[in-house]
């Protein structure tokens, strides 16, 4: 059974910001903050771990077909980003964990993915 964005809700380290349209399978993890690199290298279905919480990050996640955005290091999403995510139906989470630890936790939850 694959990890889904819905199951990330059950992890106390991750706070949901925006639920997303539907539970999506998390196929992998991608960590990066440069949006153009994310566009070129993230795979569809990835949980994207980043510190970029602006509206463009949501556009990138939508167009690159990421499963969700996990905003690390205690950063916050811009209100415009949350609104766009609601419109686009993409799930947003945030965490106080650093990027590496957040990504490792997703991997563990996904049984190594």
């Amino acid at each position, binding site marked *: 059974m694959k990890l889904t964005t819905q199951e990330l809700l059950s992890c106390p380290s991750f706070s949901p910001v925006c639920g997303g349209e539907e539970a999506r399978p998390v196929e992998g993890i991608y960590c990066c903050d440069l949006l153009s690199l994310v566009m070129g290298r993230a795979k569809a279905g990835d949980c994207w771990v980043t510190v970029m919480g602006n509206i*463009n990050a949501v556009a990138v996640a939508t167009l690159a077909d990421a499963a969700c955005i996990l905003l690390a290091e205690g950063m916050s999403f811009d209100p415009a980003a949350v609104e766009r995510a609601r419109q686009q139906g993409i799930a947003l989470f945030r965490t106080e964990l650093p990027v590496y630890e957040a990504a490792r936790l997703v991997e563990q939850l996904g049984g190594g993915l």
Partner: protein
Amino acid sequence: MAALLTLHYDVPGDDFTRAGEASSDVKKKLKALGVDPEAIRKVAIAMYEGEINMVIHAHGGTVTVTVEPDHIQMVLADTGPGIPNVELAMTEGYSTAPDEVRNLGFGAGMGLPNMKKYTDDIHIDTELGVGTTVYMTVQI
């Protein structure tokens, strides 16, 4: 044979909050047409990179997307400054984007390389002081 669908968008310049609206709309419409998800992803990424380039460098422009039975064509046209050296601009990591753009997470010099990577054909017409038109095709 007539195109299945033709879409036209104006991309406003210098407004990063609206960049991606056209690509998102195309993505939705292609999904409704039942186009293969990986082809949709390629179109969405290539078009968004093109939109961002027009916002950063050319004060906006227009995008026309034509869906044919076996391919999707995107034509991105602007009346910006033109590209002095297309070969250099196609090099990963080469960027002329200003610092405020880099602070948003763009300007990594991956725009045109990503557009090339995610399309089956790309052609760029550019003239200094006149503008740039980028033609991209994704097979479906």
